[in-house]
């Protein structure tokens, strides 16, 4: 169900629990079998001390929240800029949320400027960034 878009409107939250199975499923789907994600004995010897989720898995959850809020406006007219700040690990519960910062109009087309973040259960930021979504123009 799409939200009514207005400045200050909250996006989400969407909550997701990460398991090693989730990470393995993502590796199989995406074809990204980097051992830092899927090889527990390899990952244990790295500075991470264990496996971590793919950054793009975390970003997929952000995109899910944006799709729930904006529908087709997001999937065929969205832009995002994301920074991966920390790694999500098996056992983490991620909460993805955001907000519509402002709505701008350019050439009769409105754009929603949003921020988003993904935090783990300790409140640490895993991913943060900004997104712009093209809203319907006056004539549309």
């Amino acid at each position, binding site marked *: 169900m799409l939200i009514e878009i207005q400045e200050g409107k909250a996006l989400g939250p969407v909550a997701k629990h990460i398991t090693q199975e989730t990470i393995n499923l993502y590796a199989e789907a995406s074809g990204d079998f980097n051992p830092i994600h899927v090889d527990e004995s390899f990952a244990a010897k790295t500075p991470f001390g264990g496996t971590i989720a793919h950054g*793009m898995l975390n970003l997929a959850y952000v995109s899910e929240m944006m799709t729930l809020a904006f529908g087709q406006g997001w999937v065929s007219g969205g*832009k995002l800029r994301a*920074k991966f700040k920390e790694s999500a690990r098996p056992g983490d519960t991620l909460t993805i949320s955001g907000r519509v910062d402002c709505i701008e109009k350019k050439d009769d087309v409105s754009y929603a400027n949003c921020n988003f973040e993904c935090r783990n259960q300790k409140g640490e930021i895993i991913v943060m960034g900004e997104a712009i979504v093209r809203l319907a123009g006056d004539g549309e």
Partner: protein
Amino acid sequence: MPDKTISYEELTPGYKFPPATYELNASFVSKYRRAVDSSGDGFVPPLAITACAIAAMTKSVPLPPGTIAIHASQELEFSKLVPVGATIECRIGVAQKIARGRMSMLVLELEILDKGKEKVQSGRATIALPT
């Protein structure tokens, strides 16, 4: 699709990797949706398309053995919906290569086209590599 003709040291801004082609069939989309725990319609989730490009990227970049590449940031622009069953082409090039202390940063440009050569997505990925 690793590009065996070039080493990491030889990568320079402007270098283009050989394009990679993917068929976004129902089996792939279903596997992806299961992995990210989402339901959907007859279209491919935009991040599933990006996942193909990132996979192509990680297979393309000839990293030194044992290197752990960290995905530091990602920019994306979604231009077009893609139906399940479509074929896409991922084009990846080197935009920047930066050495910063004990880290090396590789900025890659991504462009994803459909069969009709229309742009589906574009973006930039920054990969950090401890040296």
